[in-house]
């Protein structure tokens, strides 16, 4: 491919001009205000529904016995998955030295941070007694009791928290030089001080760059296995039980692949939105979108393999309960969620065999959306088909989410998008320094 990945032929300042201009003189104030207001409304909806939830109790959700976990856990897994993909795109591609990563990594990392926040609210909101959430942390309690470190839930709590902290560090570390760029371009005093403080006095010293690069790579190198561990733990949250359909060693890798897949879906949507809204055609090029589409296609096939391997695994076990769980998956009361998943995650991405589809923004966006929604249904299918039919037929029952399930879910979308709008408005959305680095590299190679 000969098309440009980075704007090689333009002056070095061009990238900085394009990206750093956004926080300083935002090009689309009206659209932004409308979007931010809408998502702020959703965010307020989140606080309202969470307050009502805390006051009334999780009884206002549709959870019951045996479906003790409902939409809350599905959303949790979904958000963790999206978050994980952000780090994967940024960290893994950095380690693999993929040039095209640099246009996407910043907002993928932002996606990771905000998605993890959304995921993180669920382990608290879904508690019966959320005000006692701090019992999950090891602190010298007067009771002398500690958390239970064998529980995948405890792992999850730490995993989410540590993952959030490490993601923020990784993100911020990458941001520092670019914040310096914005600082130096800022005209107003307010912008200078704001970005000046955030940039911590970055001045592009060779020594700083050296340490920065080492730290950046090292953090990427530990963030990537962290992602694998975090989503493996989410998988173990299920497979640590003995329930048919969950009790499988296959879950951790299955979940990691799912996480990456859902994240690519969201990143595709975000990339297109940001590109179109902010006219970053030079930064987020067709090449980037094409690459995303190819990876989505590849992961989609991997997902398909996972789904059917999981089913084969159950069938091959010959265990009666596993077989019944497969039966329920394929033709039970919630089989529609399985087939929806199959269609959206496994069938739809195959349009990407076509180059035209890969380069059509609408198709790209739609497939990204399909994958995102499909991955939600996958979690719905995974959680529900096992829980509603457990071992003893006497305790089988159905599950109907209530208004408040959806209200909190919609609220978390606000919790994700509103900070994201702030991010797009006030921080450099792509990695200026790294793109310049690549431009320089390519120029040297050409020379």
């Amino acid at each position: 491919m000969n098309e440009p990945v980075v704007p090689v032929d333009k002056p070095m300042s061009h990238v900085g001009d394009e990206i750093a201009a956004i926080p300083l003189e935002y090009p689309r104030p009206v659209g932004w205000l409308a979007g931010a207001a809408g998502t702020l409304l959703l965010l307020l909806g989140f606080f309202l529904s969470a307050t009502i939830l805390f006051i009334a109790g999780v009884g206002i959700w549709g959870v019951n016995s045996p479906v003790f976990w409902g939409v809350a856990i599905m959303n949790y897994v979904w958000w963790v998955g999206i978050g994980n993909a952000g780090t994967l795109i940024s960290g893994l591609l950095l380690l693999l030295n993929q040039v095209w990563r640099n246009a996407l990594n910043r907002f993928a990392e932002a996606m990771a941070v905000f998605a993890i926040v959304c995921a993180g609210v669920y382990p608290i909101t879904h508690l019966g007694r959320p005000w006692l959430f701090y019992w999950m942390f090891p602190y010298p309690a007067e009771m002398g009791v500690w958390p239970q470190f064998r529980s995948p839930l405890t792992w999850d709590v730490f995993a989410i928290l540590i993952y959030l902290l490490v993601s923020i560090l990784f993100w911020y570390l990458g941001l520092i030089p670019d914040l310096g760029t914005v600082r130096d371009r800022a005209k107003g005093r307010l912008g200078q001080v704001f970005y000046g403080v955030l940039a911590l006095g970055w001045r592009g010293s060779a020594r700083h760059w050296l340490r920065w690069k080492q730290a950046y790579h090292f953090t990427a190198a530990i963030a990537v296995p962290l992602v694998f561990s975090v989503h493996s733990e989410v998988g173990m949250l299920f497979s640590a039980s003995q329930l048919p359909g969950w009790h499988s060693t296959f879950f951790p890798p299955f979940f990691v692949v799912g996480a990456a897949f859902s994240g690519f879906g969201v990143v595709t949507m975000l990339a297109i939105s940001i590109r179109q809204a902010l006219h970053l055609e030079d930064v987020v090029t067709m090449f980037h979108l094409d690459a995303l589409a190819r990876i989505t296609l590849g992961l989609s096939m991997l997902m398909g393999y996972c789904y059917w391997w999981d089913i084969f695994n159950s069938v091959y076990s010959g265990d009666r309960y596993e077989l019944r769980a497969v039966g329920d998956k394929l033709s039970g009361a919630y089989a529609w969620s399985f087939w929806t998943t199959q269609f959206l995650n496994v069938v739809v991405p195959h349009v990407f065999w076509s180059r035209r589809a890969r380069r059509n923004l609408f198709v790209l966006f739609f497939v990204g959306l399909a994958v995102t929604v499909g991955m939600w249904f996958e979690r719905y299918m995974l959680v529900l088909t096992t829980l509603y039919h457990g071992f003893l037929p006497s305790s089988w029952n159905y599950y109907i989410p209530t208004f408040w399930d959806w209200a909190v879910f919609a609220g978390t979308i606000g919790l994700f998008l509103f900070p994201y709008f702030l991010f797009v408005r006030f921080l450099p959305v792509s990695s200026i320094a790294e793109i310049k680095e690549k431009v320089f590299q390519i120029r040297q190679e050409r020379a």
Partner: protein
Amino acid sequence: MTRLLAEFEQPEDLLAAIGRTRAKGVPIIDAFAPFPVEGLDQALGLADQKVNWLGFTGMVLGAMTGWFFQWYANTDYTLNIGGRPWLAPPSFTVLTFEFAVLLGGFFMFFGVLILSRLPKLHHPLFEIPQFRRVTSDRYFLMVDAHDDAARRFVEDLHPASIAEVEG
């Protein structure tokens, strides 16, 4: 001591200037660029692995902390959880790793800042107007111009500008 800041318009110019400066034996204090210019470290002869070692130390400490937490909690109040042994390495590895990553990340991040003496909001370089473009498209070399010869040498590099750094 006089510190001179020479401005270059292209990274290649900076690299070339560094090569010449080092050959001449003029002490280089630092170089500045808007991005991590490839070859800059080698040109300056920087080979500092401190950050990596810090990260590694953080990870080891983190792993120890993580393991200790779990070991201590289960020793302090030993409970029979589902018939599993009280010391359960398979279960404990997970958080051990998580803590390793946490402390590794922290050490790394704060290591970079401390080693780089950041935050440093007020710096003499910021007095120099053209230095503002260091985050955009200008490249700077700062040398210790202890005598006039050195100063002339800098001028010979044909930088876009030369400024004296105070303080």
